[in-house]
């Protein structure tokens, strides 16, 4: 067992969430914006409208700078922050899907080369060759989404993989196609917003209006179809996910998502009707609103997976919860309940030597770090603060907290406590020290 990086107040889980949600903006921009480019580049050559080329050039620079500085680095950032919040979970994903990621990387190679060469070869190669480079980028970028969705959806619904352990059974799992379609259509809405921001800077008024109208139209289509496919996605969610949603009522997150989609839809309709009125300030404002919508969608997707990092396989606190006979993987629950979680802690030899193992408080502290801190902060103020949550349910003393730890078995969104009775007492002692009126 690895420790988890403890971030006071915020938690390492939310750092991962923030980086991952931010990553959606440049990554979905990257997957969608080139389609706008190839469409308008074809039009420019076919209809002899060189004024469209200004839009394409500006789009490309936006892709180069925004998508390739922030997209590529936040992509790496997801790995880094996942390492810090849930190393064993990331390890399990990588050991099952390393060739998925490696395949995605092949498409990154095509994307990066294509975007630079597309930019530098503007007007200097034949239109056909330039368009081919554009298509390589557009396809490669979208395919990178085709791949990563397989891994993301696998976490939520591993499906048949639980029996077979087969790469492709896990990849094409029950929520794969609905999620891919939702993201594919919504990406055109995100791309549409960026395209409006870019179009608003074009000097030629006619071209600006035509591009804005088209982008808003594509955005409307993307939002409507994406929203339709969300219903299919919800239908494919496991029962436990729906139970969490109905038990916990994430009204704020739902509203954030719904209002963002609605507001953006209204903006697209407005621009569609009045394309000459497109302006940079509202366009940027709506990109910020889109971030709110993305935050809501991504958080709800994460919540739907609770209490697992891979459903039925690994809890969000890194403990393997189920057997996968085809992979020779066994649940760790019984083993840890009998022999102790700390006896499997990576630093057990160096931290607990020379009698320190007797230090009950230290043991409790480390158990809290392994089992609690990726989601809960240990301070009174912050994200899901453990001291306050315990006080709210009236658990302050060791015995009361120990009772709560026993009750975790019955929660739909929390993993159960795993460890020996002695470890439970150590964790209760430590948590009790955090509460007012506790030890």
């Amino acid at each position, binding site marked *: 067992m690895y*420790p988890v990086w403890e971030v006071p107040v915020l938690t390492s889980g939310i750092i991962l969430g923030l*980086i991952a949600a931010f990553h959606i903006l440049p990554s979905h921009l990257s997957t969608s914006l080139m389609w706008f480019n190839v469409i308008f580049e074809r039009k420019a050559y076919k209809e002899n409208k060189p004024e469209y080329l200004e839009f394409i050039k500006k789009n490309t620079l936006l892709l180069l700078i925004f998508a390739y*500085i922030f997209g*590529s*680095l*936040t*992509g*790496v*950032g997801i*790995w*880094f*922050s996942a390492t*810090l919040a849930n*190393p064993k979970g990331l*390890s*399990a994903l*990588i*050991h099952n899907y390393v*060739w*998925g*990621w*490696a*395949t995605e990387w*092949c*498409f*990154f*190679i*095509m994307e990066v*080369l294509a975007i630079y*060469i597309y930019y530098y*070869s503007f007007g*200097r*190669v034949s239109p*056909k*060759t330039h368009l*081919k*480079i554009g*298509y*390589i980028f557009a396809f*490669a970028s979208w*395919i990178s989404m085709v791949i990563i969705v397989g891994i993301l959806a696998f976490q939520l619904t591993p*499906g048949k993989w639980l029996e077979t352990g*087969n*790469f*492709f*059974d896990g990849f*094409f799992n*029950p929520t*794969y*196609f609905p999620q891919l379609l939702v993201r594919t259509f919504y990406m055109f809405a995100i791309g549409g917003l960026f395209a409006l921001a870019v179009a608003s800077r074009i000097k030629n008024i006619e071209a600006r209006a035509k591009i804005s109208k088209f982008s808003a139209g594509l955005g409307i289509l993307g939002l409507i179809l994406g929203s339709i496919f969300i219903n299919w996605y919800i239908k494919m969610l496991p029962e436990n996910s729906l139970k969490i949603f109905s038990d916990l009522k994430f009204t704020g997150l739902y509203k954030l998502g719904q209002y963002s989609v609605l507001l953006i839809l209204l903006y697209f309709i407005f621009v569609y009707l009045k394309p000459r009125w497109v302006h940079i300030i509202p366009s940027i404002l709506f990109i910020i609103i889109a971030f709110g919508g993305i935050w809501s969608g991504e958080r709800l997707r994460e919540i739907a997976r609770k209490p697992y990092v891979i459903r039925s396989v690994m809890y969000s606190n890194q403990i393997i919860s189920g057997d996968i006979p085809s*992979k*020779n*993987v*066994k649940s760790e629950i019984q083993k840890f309940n009998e022999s102790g979680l700390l006896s499997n802690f*990576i*630093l057990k030899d*160096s931290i607990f030597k020379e009698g320190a193992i007797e230090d009950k408080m*230290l043991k409790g502290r*480390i158990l809290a*770090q392994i089992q609690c801190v990726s989601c809960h902060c240990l301070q009174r103020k912050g994200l899901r603060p453990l001291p306050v949550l315990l006080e709210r349910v009236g658990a302050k003393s060791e015995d009361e907290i120990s009772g709560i730890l026993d009750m975790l078995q019955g929660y739909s969104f929390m993993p159960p406590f795993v460890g020996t009775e002695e470890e439970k007492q150590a964790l209760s002692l430590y948590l009790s020290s955090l509460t007012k009126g506790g030890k």
Partner: protein
Amino acid sequence: MYDAFGLPIYPIIFQILMVLTFSIHIIFVNLTWASSFLAFYFDLKKEEKYKKLSFTLKRALPSLFSVAILMGIAPLLFIQTIYDYLWYSSNIFSGIYLILFLFALMIAFSFLYLYYLKENSPKWLGAVSFILISFAGIVIHVLNIQMLYMSKWGQFWHPSSFGKLNIFEIYRFLHFFFASFAIAGFFMLTNAWYLKKRNTDEEIVKFRSELGLKIFFIFTILQAISGIWWLVLVPGKFKFYFNHLTITSIVLFLVLLHFMLKALKNPLKYFYHISITLFVLIITMAANRESLRALFLKESGFSLKDYPLNIHFPSFLLFLITFLLAILATIFMLSVIFKLGLKKEEVEDTPFIKNLGSLSVIGLILWVLIVAGLGVIIYVKNL
């Protein structure tokens, strides 16, 4: 020590891929690192030829940076696959520095764009980028060393640690630092070779090739010295001196030195000899680094031979086929840019470029169709 899900293919495949991709990654990292400093340094000079050279570097830096990150993804993936236990532990010991690493690179990357795109951009943009990239280099250096010293892990971590950089080996760091200037020197030499093909003014070609070779030569020697320093400090029990990869590296270094000395009179005369020797040397050094890591880890009882296996060939095949497609598209795009660079006016399509471009696009469409078809069949079957 080993992930319960095991490896989907033999560890040697991951090691080979990791060494190869790391070699390309480190070439571009080195190039970006030293070039950001040299672009700034030449920018400070008043002579026009230095200003022009600075602009060439500025222009190249954003794409070099991008390729460095792109090529870093693969070794980062493979290190997590075979050295997961060591890599993840080391990462957690340095928590906050991983996040700072990301911000440092984002700022450096943005600054390098500003440095290139803005006319008369402030010179400090180059210097700050260099400092930030150096910081990122230090973080990665520390992560790679922390993972080797398992016996010290207890000192590296405590429950409320926000993350620390626990260990730093100056000789090892300098070995990479000097290499970056050597590679940047070689890049200038390559630039001169390319300019000569474009029939650029001979004075510029001469200036860049001579300066490039000088920087390349001096820093290669310094790198060799730091390499010997490192070699001396490797625990004697490993007998690393007699490792066949160490001996091969030394021999290749001497061959490179020989060509560099010969090239001093006419830098471009031995360009191909130098390029090939250098590339082989870099791969050999990267492989040697991997063998040294294995020796360190064996001490702590970690061996890739013990890693459980859950072999699955079809997914590996998916990667290989996609990799071939990526090579095809890469050859097409590099042919376009190479041809483009040689002329100032618009270039015409050759049949080679035309066919390769069409094949690449068709390949991508076929990829989508085959994977989607396979996906639908599996999806419906499993419902």
